[in-house]
């Protein structure tokens, strides 16, 4: 198991950088260096996309494992929202949530969320997390009991988590990937799989 895992890791996630959608930096933006909008959203407005990009980067920064932006979490969220939102003038709950969160950033720091530094973003995250209702446990894919709405912050966090963990790079190179286990072993040391989860 360890050997196979090591083998998978040789395919470094950095090679996955080519996955990034073709960028339009410079065409759209004059200040590309500071502006996180180096991708072309299909659903979000440029300001919303800047927010989502900053949100994903704050939640899932690049470390010795890929960050959310490295595996295009932001692009995937844009795609999911685009597919699932009927065209129209009314802002979706997601768009309304972004607007409100950004308003909070401006009230507290005088800047949009994406313009804040890491610690300022972190303070807003902690404040939002403390207010956000939690998910009920699930049984066979459905929440048990009454699930109160979890609000914008946790909804987006949940979507980002899903997008991150279900990406090919994380699923095959960072997590333990075994599409055909062949057997079930009900008790193994967590150490034996490097302390990480199975991806499937």
């Amino acid at each position, binding site marked *: 198991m360890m050997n196979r895992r090591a083998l998978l890791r040789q395919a470094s996630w950095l090679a996955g950088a080519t996955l990034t959608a073709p960028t339009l930096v410079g065409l759209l933006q004059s200040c590309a260096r500071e502006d996180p909008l180096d991708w072309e959203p299909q659903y979000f407005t440029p300001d919303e996309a800047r927010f989502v990009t900053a949100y994903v980067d704050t939640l899932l920064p690049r470390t010795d494992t890929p960050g959310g932006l490295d595996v295009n979490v932001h692009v995937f969220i844009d795609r999911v929202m685009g597919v699932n939102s009927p065209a129209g003038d009314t802002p979706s709950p997601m768009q309304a949530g972004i607007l409100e969160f950004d308003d909070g950033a401006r009230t507290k720091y005088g800047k949009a969320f994406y313009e804040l530094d*890491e610690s300022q973003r972190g303070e807003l995250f902690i404040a939002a997390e403390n207010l956000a209702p939690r998910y009920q446990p699930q049984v066979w894919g459905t929440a*048990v009991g009454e699930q109160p709405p979890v609000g914008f912050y946790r909804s987006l966090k949940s979507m980002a988590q899903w997008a991150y963990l279900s990406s090919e790079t994380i699923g095959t190179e*960072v997590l333990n990937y075994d*599409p055909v286990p062949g057997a*079930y072993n009900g008790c193994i040391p967590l150490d034996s799989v490097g302390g990480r*989860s199975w991806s499937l």
Partner: protein
Amino acid sequence: MANFNIDADKSVTYDAIVVGSGISGGWAAKELTEKGLRTLVLERGRIVEHVKDYPTMNLDPWDMDLRGGLTPEERDKHYKSIRSGFIGKDTEHFHANDRENPYTEVKPFLWIRAHQLGGRSILWGKQTYRLSDLDFEANARDGHGVDWPIRYRDIAPWYTYVEKFAGISGAPLGLPQLPDSHFLPPMEMNCVEKHVKARLEKEFAGRHLIIGRCAHLTVPHNGRGKCQYRNRCSRGCPYGAYFSSNAATLPAAHATGKLTIRPFSIAQSVRYDDTKGTATGVRVIDSETGETVDYKAKVIFLNASALGSTQIMLNSTSKRFENGLGNDSGELGHNLMDHTYRIGAVGTVDGFEDKYYSGRRPNGIYIPRYWNVDEQSRSDKFVRGFGFQGGGGRTGNNNLEGHGADYKEKLLQPGPWEFFITGFAECLPYHSNKVTLNDAVRDKWDQPTLAIDAEWGANEHALNDQIQEDAVEMLERVGLRDIVGFNNRHEMGYGIHEMGTARMGRDPKTSVLNAFNQVHAARNVFVTDGACMTSSSCVNPSLTYMALTARAADHAVSELNKRNI
């Protein structure tokens, strides 16, 4: 796979017709063909050939558009059945189109349908338990419904017969209320499940926690491969490791050379000859062309699902049967049952943080019924009882707090161990729970549809209250923390165990079928799907459909040979 009889002119006469190809239809086809009958299987949907037609069987989340999420168009196509929570991009193609196949919810009712070769045998939960005499005697003992015309001894050898072919994994326990099957080796419990088992059985005398008994092969069996622990069953299994019509019974039927499958064939009605006093065949609407064709046979098996077969019978009117085939009793369409669903408790288990598991086991644990099994366990609040399914695993990262580097690293690690149990309660047969033909709402083929008018009664609510109370108490005494008791108050249908709408019984005045699943007043018509059930037990019913079907097919051929039908 099989001979497809798409050119309808060639042959309209067979020895036997089987309507439907799910769990029970597949068995009917296998048994009748193996006994030498030229058999026509009518399937209202398309052909799904084993392995070849499982397009999502090997897809990882990132291989699917939206990582397996549905588009608004797909959700609309399944706007009713999506309530189940079980439909994703990986299985969407095995669920019927709710827009083309409307039904009316007089009271809320979830009707999950699968219109293709194999039917719901592709999608089923695969939990397999025998009924016992506690079940077969239940109606007679407490006066609800009518008495089953059979007892455990009548069906026991047929359970063994179908289990030997299907392959049921599990461990014997010797409980009278849950007779042991003919088992392949059991699947393994994980460390937390073993821990909970030990504590629970010590704390609660008379309660047992066992590995689920299921129609998954733990060793190669009858030419099918063993489970590879991928837990992608409902997409179709390339190894044929779980029992489905496509992997098991239909290939066996095909091997006889006696099988013809006609896809895209909606059984509109059973034809009945008033002068001869016998059913003569089945009228089919070709779902592609709209053409109507009458097929003839000496024996007809209805296996279109409980409500599907009932709909066909209600639609089969003649001078003799003005209110539907075999409906002298007025019970056809009545006594609809299901099992209650998603009531239980979930909690967190400490002390196993350094432990994990490998493989994705398509099975959980089971706690057999312990209420009303003897004098000591009698309840004064309800009759009958319930069993629990459940399991333990490390899944709980949904509410992971924080953000940034530490949060991300934690997200990549297994969450805390959680353990849950969820009850399945027996449902009584109430005459008032019924389906009727609805002329006002027509399907895509201009056929009348079903109106479903059913709801849980006082006994089911009392059982559900007990389920939740017991579930919380068990998890507390086992030592879990952060226990959440739940009752999702799902309407009927969520159990996906529709039963009882053409029940078996001893008396033609109060039942539709006899002890061999023959329509009392049309003896060459057999109904062996969920419609036949006289009571619902609290265990998953499919194994019983298999056994009753094999038994009925044996009887049918015997009666044919004696020229009694």
